């Protein structure tokens, strides 16, 4: 690293995590730019939580390393946690601890602790301050942990599937809270989630993790701009002797031949190339459409992010 550059808030270098013979992460490398929101997407069991635990120094990788603000997270975890807010997958505060006690506990650890902000936030969300953590609902627990993670004004916020097991209202509230929290601070966020709809609005960079392998790691805008769905009809003409080469100008991620024509997902879309494609002999009714994050994930990973996504996708495409 150039010493004149300030280190990125979070980076993962050749990270490998194994559990016996099973590989949770295989040589994963990524970095999170300052002020950005990095969303790591992947199905359950893809290795997201292992990566997060390694990232915050709670778990030692089998090889590779994770850096927070340029320092090894495993070695310097305690010191680095003053600059990082963490919400792990399972809200894990001691069951007898009330949110108020959690706030007081954290206040002893952080020089700048916004206890009032935490209380206000939880009060706004209807989370009781004097109820034991173990008796709160899952949504309330998630809100408490998020509030505790934000209480010291962290430079980096690491959230491991904070919306897991939450209903849609709670998910919405959490993301709104997150957006509100980020709005005035410029906090860097690393988040893993299944909730593509929620994250799509705030993520600046996206990573796709499948079976421990990072399939994609890209800026959100680039991702959106280069992925397109192209649908067209293929006509048989006298002048046409070769079929199936019309998409050669694109990197076709997925091509499906359907009754009405061809449905293709391309990963290097640009308008000029599409114009040329549209004028190709035999290509008729070509149309291009932007893709949602969920559709891109499905195209790249070859599987939906979550079971309900699969059901929605299947219904949309009219496949049996």
């Amino acid at each position, binding site marked *: 690293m150039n010493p004149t550059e300030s280190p990125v808030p979070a980076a993962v270098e050749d990270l490998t995590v194994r559990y016996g013979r099973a590989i949770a992460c295989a040589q994963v490398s990524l970095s999170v730019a300052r002020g950005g929101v990095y969303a790591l997407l992947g199905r359950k069991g893809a290795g997201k939580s292992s990566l997060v*635990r390694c990232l915050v120094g*709670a*778990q030692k990788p089998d090889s590779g390393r994770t850096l927070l603000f340029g320092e090894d997270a495993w070695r310097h975890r305690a010191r680095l946690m003053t600059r990082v807010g963490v919400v792990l997958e399972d809200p*894990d505060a001691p069951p007898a601890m009330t949110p108020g006690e959690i706030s007081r506990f954290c206040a002893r650890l952080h020089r700048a602790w916004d206890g009032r902000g935490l209380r206000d936030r939880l009060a706004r969300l209807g989370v009781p301050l004097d109820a034991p953590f173990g008796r709160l609902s899952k949504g309330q627990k998630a809100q408490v942990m998020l509030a505790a993670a934000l209480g010291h004004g962290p430079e980096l916020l690491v959230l491991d599937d904070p919306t897991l097991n939450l209903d849609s209202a709670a998910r919405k509230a959490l993301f709104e809270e997150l957006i509100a929290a980020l709005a005035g601070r410029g906090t860097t966020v690393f988040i893993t989630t299944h909730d593509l709809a929620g994250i799509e609005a705030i993520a600046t960079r996206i990573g796709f993790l499948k079976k421990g392998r990072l399939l994609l790691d890209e800026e959100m805008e680039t991702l959106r701009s280069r992925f397109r769905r192209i649908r067209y009809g293929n006509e048989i003409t006298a002048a046409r002797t070769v079929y199936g080469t019309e998409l050669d100008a694109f990197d076709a991620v997925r091509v499906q031949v359907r009754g009405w024509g061809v449905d293709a997902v391309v990963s290097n879309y640009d308008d000029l190339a599409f114009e040329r494609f549209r004028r190709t002999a035999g290509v008729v009714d070509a149309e291009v459409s932007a893709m949602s994050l969920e559709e891109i994930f499905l195209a790249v990973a070859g599987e939906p992010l979550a079971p309900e996504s699969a059901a929605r996708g299947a219904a949309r495409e009219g496949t049996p």
Partner: protein
Amino acid sequence: MRGFFAVASREIVERRRVFVAAAVAALFPLFAPLLPAARRFGAPEARLYTAAFFAVAFSAALSLILGMTAIGRDLSERRLGFYFSRPIGNAAIWAGKLAGIGLQVLLAALLILLPAGLVDLATWWRETRMGLAAEIGVAFVFAVVVFLALGKAISLALRSRPAWVAGDVVAFALWLLAMGTISLPLLVARAPVVLQRLGLVVAIACAVALLAAGGAQVSIGRVDPVRGTRARFAVLWGLLFAIAGLFAGFTRWLLRPAPSELSSVLVRAAAPAGSWIGVEGLARGRADLRVSLFYDVASGGYVRGWTGREGSAVVSADGTTAAWTQASGIFSDGPQDVWACRLAAGAPGTRTPISERIGNIAISPEGSRLAIAGERALGIYEIPSGRLLGSIALDSDERFSRFVFVGRDRLRLFRIPSAAVARAGEELATIEVSDFDVPARRLVERVAIPNLHRPFSLAFDDRDGRVLVWEKGSALSLFDLSSSRFVRVLGNFAWDATSRAFLSDGRIAVAEASAGMARVHLFSKNGEPERVFEAGQAGLVRLGAEPSAGTLAVSVGPTPYVWGASDSFLLDLRDGKLRKLGKHLEPVAAHMRWRLPQPEPGSAASLLFSRNDGALLRFDPATGKLVTVFRGR
């Protein structure tokens, strides 16, 4: 440190109801004087000691519960992620939890002690000065550490995966086996102080290892249960086997003192000729553990022997071979192993195949055979092979047996059958003497000495086949076993005030203290009176051996039965001159008359004196001075 204090205080706050329970428990000791069992104490003492008991018991129970719930559950249910997401050091998380629990237990214990202490402040102060506080402190620390670790171990065992539990069980079995094997010699030695101290240290070390393993599980594993369990397993068993290794090393050190470290020795065996003796004594830094050596007084060479007080030891007459018995297991009435070694070679002892419940042993003069009195039979074995050469059935109701090799192939037995002829108001006994021919495996009856009035005592001259029988209230008589005849009455002496010795030239010496005066009577080989030597005013006189031919070691004390106050002299049998050797000294031969064949002049056994502080000294005929062989207390 902020993290440490935050975690510690959190532990205390989370379980603050413990203090309510402690406050309730603190009331019970106030009613202790009402209990019938407490009536033999004063009311303050009853309250105070009940409170102390409650405090320690409450601490132990609380430690066990907190070990299972606070630490074990956090570890096994992965609840530590909350702490690892905060700026708290790894060590601070674990240490903070332990400190919080420890402080909570301590405060609860003090809360229990407080009311009784306030009610009986004066008694409390008095008992504290007498060591009560220290005793409670030791019990408290022991209870907290051991029960906390135990609770954690139980919790982990219940919550771990079966593979790890199986691994723990296997490792625990191996560790127990190792510890049992290492500690067996100490258990056999029956040294309660050493065992108690070692047990305490090992228990605390194991508890610390268990807690350290928990610390490693937290620090290394953090929120990764697999890595944490692996770390816990490696650290726990690494430490426990390291403790076993240290324990083995320390046990080896305990059992292998250098001769210079021995003190307060007892001479348990001695060669009638030569310079080898078998000694048993305490050693520096080893508390009450008694260890033994076969020691060459002339060269300082030694061979290690048995441990503890139990067992028998013999050295062959030519001083080349030693044999001894050592319990096979921890039970004192169980079988004993027989060990043997060639002293001249300086080789360590080897265990022979012989193992049985042994009463006594005797070794042949050249050290190739061993006679062993078991429960039912007396066996003659070849050593070190352990081959049985012959055996003699023993009567179960025999009241006394002595056996001694009078040659390589001949074992002499002295038996006193219990079926004695009774006369009105008297109890009579017969001594039966027989020889066992080892090659022929045949018992030859030699002689019987009948109609002896009980009680009586005996002195043996195995070299010339003579026995002195001294009947209480009657005469001291000489019998010749070779010709099977009564030789003569040597005289009438006061009971319990005489000592007899067969001299190297065959003459007989008898010492007595009567009417406040000590005398040594010298008789010819046939028991005819030759001379009487006056040894001054004394209440006790004992005969040792001959440091040189014609010179007899004598100890003279002011009071009957009090050996420690005796002084030692050398009596020149030619001119009757007494030369004082030293104060509070006893010739070793005087103590060992029963076990030791009459030592030859100039042998180590004839030159050794024991001092009343436990020191063993050797008389140097060349300089006429005493040299310390083993120091005293």
